[in-house]
């Protein structure tokens, strides 16, 4: 088996306000002249290294795990997942 890197980003669904992202945009970016920023959403990032036969299997393994273990709360969060080049 080889080792793969799978990156997971968890962020709030659009209906759930993100006060941290709003504060970063309004009180830091806009106040210092970066007025062309239209939106900032914060989230959580997990870089997971996993052993698998191939990339597809590595990705499926992580998808199953983050759903089984409630790594995100489906009521309020969405996730996106990116498989990186094999590192093993």
């Amino acid at each position, binding site marked *: 088996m080889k080792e793969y890197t799978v990156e997971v980003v968890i962020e709030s669904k659009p*209906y*759930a306000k993100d*006060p*941290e992202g709003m504060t970063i945009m309004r009180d830091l970016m806009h106040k210092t002249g970066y007025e062309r920023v239209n939106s900032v959403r914060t989230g959580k990032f997990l870089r997971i290294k996993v052993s698998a036969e191939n990339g597809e299997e590595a990705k499926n393994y992580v998808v199953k795990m983050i759903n089984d273990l409630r790594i995100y709360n489906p*009521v*309020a*969060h969405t996730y996106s997942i990116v498989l990186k080049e094999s590192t093993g």
Partner: protein
Amino acid sequence: MKIAIIQFPGSNCEYDALHVLKNVFRQDTHLVWHKDFNSGDFDAVILPGGFSYGDHLRAGVIAAYSPAMRHVREMAAEGKPVLGICNGFQILIESKLLDGALLQNNCLTFVCKWVNLRVETTRTPFTKFINESSILRIPIAHKEGRYVNTRRRIKELYDNDQIVFKYVDENGFESSDSNPNGSMDNIAGICNLDGNVVGLMPHPERASETILSPYKTEHGRLIFESLIKYFNGGR
């Protein structure tokens, strides 16, 4: 009535709850380490406040996978009263025993202050003997207490009478000023469909003796007294 208070690594309000139930109300109450918890002969269970597992990943989510929660789920299914206070509420949410999400406060900071709660339903063991619409002064102390759910699910919570407490002003009115964390519809506590599982962000165990209240109130008592009356023939 035999009550269990489950202690997780990082719980820090378990002794407050134990003190109130054991010394103030003289109830048969036991502090149980989460790995040793077995629903066995307990009639009710309390998940106390604190920072279980350091709030890592998300408040309450790691404790939700403790084997203790399997037993809590059994007790909930049997209709036994389950109360989650603050981090305990977060654990009930992450265990899917209660619906929704508790996100970071709108103000982004930890908020520790006394709030006014309005009792929205008396169909739970913890509110059965409190007058509906009573205003309770009880403190909050949390950073992740903003209750969030889809509009559709919040409507269902209303339709099914699952909203137990709301943040209000001292006259009992909902307002954004009386909402300490930005919770949708000022929701401070909810229950499951059957009403036996209740979670709330405020801390009734810190508001059960006048010496602990700047207002000389003891409104938190009402919640525990209600549970006791419920077991003493008031079901």
